[in-house]
């Protein structure tokens, strides 16, 4: 039976799950959740995700939420090498850089994406440039760490691609759509690494889904 993903592909958190499903070749169905009609706050959706967010995943009787937890489940269920669970040390490194993605990359990026792409386009609002600048500074410090890391290994967790790298792609894709994409020119290894991730067939496929749902 196909797994169901609740949410729309244009959401970075939904896209994260979709890329994992594509990587393992799983059968799945995307069930949209309409934010415009507050469907995400409906009793039906909050019974799947008590915080009223997307994505949620249904696999038979199992219902999960939180994209990184869902991603781990999908990869683990299909014995994917993207978690490196056969190696205590390698899997720990994957965990480290997945935490880094979550706390040092996604956090400032979420603000930048909201201010530069969501607020003006969907809410007719004005970008707060001061807030954007503060978060670009945080992002710059993160990229400095990444640039150094990527001088020591091909990918974040080691010389192997992992969930830690893939988890960055939806947000990185949107960064390239903001006026601040040029920041990546300051970090050539980071830029090359992002380009490599965005070229993966599974990622290309999900990007098409993200564009179609926007």
């Amino acid at each position: 039976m196909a797994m169901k993903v609740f949410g729309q592909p244009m959401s970075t958190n939904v896209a994260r799950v979709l890329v994992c499903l594509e990587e393992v070749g799983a059968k799945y169905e995307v069930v949209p959740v309409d934010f415009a009609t507050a469907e995400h706050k409906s009793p039906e959706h909050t019974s799947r995700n008590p915080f009223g967010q997307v994505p949620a995943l249904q696999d038979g009787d199992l219902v999960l939420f939180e994209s990184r937890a869902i991603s781990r489940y999908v990869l683990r269920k299909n014995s994917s090498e993207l978690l490196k669970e056969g190696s205590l040390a390698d899997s720990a490194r994957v965990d480290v850089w997945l935490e880094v993605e979550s706390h040092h990359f996604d956090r400032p990026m979420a603000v930048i994406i909201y201010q530069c792409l969501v607020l003006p386009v969907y809410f007719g609002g004005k970008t707060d440039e001061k807030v954007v600048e503060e978060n670009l500074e945080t992002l710059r410090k993160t990229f400095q760490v990444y640039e150094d890391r990527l001088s020591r290994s091909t990918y974040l967790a080691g010389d192997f691609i992992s969930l830690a790298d893939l988890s960055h792609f939806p947000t990185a894709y949107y960064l390239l759509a903001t006026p601040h994409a040029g920041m990546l020119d300051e970090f050539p290894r980071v830029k090359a690494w992002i380009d490599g991730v965005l070229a993966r067939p599974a990622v290309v496929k999900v990007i098409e889904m993200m564009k179609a749902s926007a």
Partner: protein
Amino acid sequence: MAGGVKVYGVAASPFVATVLVCLEEAGADYELVAVDMAARENRSQHHLARNPFGKIPAFEDGELTLFESRAISRYVLRKYSRMDLLGEEGDGDLEGSAMADVWAEVEAHQYSPAISNIVRECVIKQMIGAGGRNQAVVDENVERLGKVLDAYEQRLSESEYLAGRLVTVADLSHFGFTWFLMATEYASLVESRANVKAWWERLLARPAVKKVAALMPGGVTTG
């Protein structure tokens, strides 16, 4: 202490406390190596070599260096075969480990962002002499945390622990920040919710948690 692992940081940090609780639960041989935060030792070259973001904790097991408390905690529990604390009731229990992962993410994305702001304003800033409380920030985050705890109250009416029947790292990772909250007037956020209160008391009763609590400044034990 050959073969033992090292944690770099101070027990007063809720993130360090999470790692210490996991090490105690695992019965591991470990050493807590102090990092002098007041002297900004966390920004020194030798600490940045372990944690490039200049935060605590950092962790060493022989040649392996890790940072980010939740990643370290997972490593510790795997290394010492405490897969039960990662949600696995039996070998390769996919559903159990998935539920533990879900609620560990909830702690990271819903609970800690709200509670850390309250604890920083009400407790930490005073401790480190960084100025007075910003009540507006406190009020905003008290409201935020209240909504999160409403979801917890509902969840904990369905099972004893967040992931289900058994305690997991998802529960344990709440200890540090909650410890500090309970010493403020905002302890009522927990006290006023019967299931959350009972869950917190179950956590506090654990020998591993008691051991780490004894290392932490201030705080108040309930009951």
